[in-house]
């Protein structure tokens, strides 16, 4: 055997599995380094229904899961036997879809005799770009904007500390608002990326759509987007013969959403005297949100971190990254009877901790 030079501290290869919605994501991460990944989506199968059909998503996960694992392993030049730990999204998400990923993760862990970590999907979003950059600052303010969630959080040590909700949405999530308005305006599915595309180069000041919950007496960190959707629908209905270009309507709507999101996020940073803002989730892929957040953070002296666009929407890398973080921080594995938790609330990164470990934490 060749002599080893210096301390060789290498952690296990962590395989992450994500199946909370319509993406089957698998990735392999070791010590913060991405070794391989694979992603399969059933998005096209849902398009004609105007939204994700849980049964279709679950059937697609069953077909895609093992092929994704093989492809991730192949891209890493590894075999299954090289995997040292498994992380899986246990919730929140579609029950039918979560069950597939959790069952597969438990099967790999049982067959390989390696520890299993159930993780919270949204905590996964927070960890999405750990493989591309520095460790996360501690503490930080996080804005999570996805199809199902919109929250402002105070995050400490992501692997260990409880996550504090500063505010959430009272009704629709930001991504849901993009998707619903896109339908109203006749844009293709999925709505968020279509709105983003159609708004490019258009006048975002053409129409003044409402900025919900931004009055002086409104809850500072709470969101509400269902009224904005109604406002756009009403405007479109009342102006069938408008000469305003559709792109201007779309850009004006998008501006209303990203204006509210960024204003409240900056306010949270200021109020808590925290100079680091992390913006994650599918809507963080929005080009105007990225632009406005960068501009406002620069003005306010806040460091902004947003994952690369492809790491904003659901993927396996974010789950493997979070699993890798948990392993490196010495977290206890989740219980072997880990269940899918479709409605899991975000108060810590790990789910399904065995009882004694939970009490010790």
């Amino acid at each position, binding site marked *: 055997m060749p002599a080893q030079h210096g301390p060789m501290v290498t952690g296990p290869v962590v395989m992450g599995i994500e199946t909370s919605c319509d993406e089957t994501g698998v990735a392999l991460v070791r010590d913060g380094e991405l070794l391989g990944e694979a992603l399969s989506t059933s998005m096209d199968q849902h398009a004609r229904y105007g*939204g994700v059909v849980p049964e279709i998503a679950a059937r697609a996960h069953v077909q895609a*899961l*093992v092929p994704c694992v093989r492809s991730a392993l192949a891209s890493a030049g590894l075999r299954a036997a090289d995997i040292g730990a498994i992380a899986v999204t246990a919730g929140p998400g579609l029950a039918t879809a979560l069950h597939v990923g959790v069952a597969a993760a438990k099967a790999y862990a049982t067959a390989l005799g390696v520890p299993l970590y159930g993780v919270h999907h949204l905590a996964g979003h927070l960890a999405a770009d750990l493989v591309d950059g520095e460790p996360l600052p501690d503490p930080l303010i996080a804005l999570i904007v996805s199809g199902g969630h919109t929250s402002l959080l105070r995050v400490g040590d992501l692997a260990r500390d409880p996550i504090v909700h500063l505010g959430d949405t009272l009704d629709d999530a930001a991504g849901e608002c993009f998707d619903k308005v896109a339908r109203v305006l006749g844009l293709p599915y999925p709505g968020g990326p279509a709105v983003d595309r159609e708004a490019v180069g258009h006048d975002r000041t053409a129409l003044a759509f409402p900025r919900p919950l931004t009055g002086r007496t409104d809850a500072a960190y709470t969101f509400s987007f269902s009224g904005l959707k109604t406002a756009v629908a009403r405007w479109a209905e009342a102006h069938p013969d408008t000469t305003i270009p559709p792109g201007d309507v779309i850009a004006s709507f998008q501006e209303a959403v990203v204006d509210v999101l960024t204003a409240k996020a900056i306010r949270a940073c200021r109020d808590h005297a925290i100079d680091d803002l992390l913006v994650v989730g599918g809507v963080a892929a929005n080009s105007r949100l990225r632009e406005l957040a960068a501009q406002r953070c620069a003005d306010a002296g806040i460091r902004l971190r947003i994952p690369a666009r492809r790491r904003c929407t659901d993927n396996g890398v974010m789950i493997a990254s979070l699993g890798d973080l948990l392993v490196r921080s010495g977290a206890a594995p989740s219980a072997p009877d880990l269940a*899918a938790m479709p409605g899991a609330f975000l108060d810590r990164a790990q789910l399904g901790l065995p009882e004694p470990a939970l009490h010790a934490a």
Partner: protein
Amino acid sequence: MLVLVLALDTATAACAVALAELTESDRAPRESTAGAVPGRDEPAAPGVHVWPRGSVVTVDARRHGELLAPSMRTVLDDAGARPSDLAAVVVGAGPGPFTGLRVGMVTAAAFADALEIPVYGVCSLDGIGAATTGAVAVVTDARRREVYWACYDDGVRVGEPAVGRPAEVAAALRDRGVTGVAGPGLALYPAAFAEFTSVAVPASDGGLSAPEAGYPRPELLVGLAGADLLAGRPPHPLVPLYLRRPDATEPHAPKPVRA
């Protein structure tokens, strides 16, 4: 030749796992340790003998996802076996209620993939039907007031499994000259199947009163894949038998918004 096989089935309310050894002759495998359950006195198929090495079957329709992996661990540990000792996995591919069925299918596929061993899918209803004699039908719960069903002649399935309303299924069985009905669907729709003899299928240990009696017996599934397995024939791709399309309706044009 002797191979150790793990079988599992989640196509009914039972979460079923069994470990079994397969041999070509009816001679008990030499390696068999104390505690091995006696095998069937009839071969599962010509030249295929199944020697059960333990099973865990839990009837709880809502907890397949939680129970399955720990049950697999228990079955292996109790037999003093390791996952790496396994030569193949056999799984009931349905038909069955979708969420439970998927847990078993993806577990089997992932477990086998991790070990780089083949996984064979067989019809879950055969895990009941193979224990029957005569002209018998197996019926299981398909939810939505329907049953999954298949017909057997002396334990061998005749035709493909199907799904239907109990009364329509009963009529079809009458036409086929079926005399007895087995499986958990019977207790759900006793009136619809009143004209048929109720066929009791004992649990793996021979008991008729155990909660798992009448549910698919995973060690019987091993026998069904046994010939292919012993001959080294590669398995067909795993395809869950849903027998129903997903429920989904295309949306209408967006609703007009009232001012």
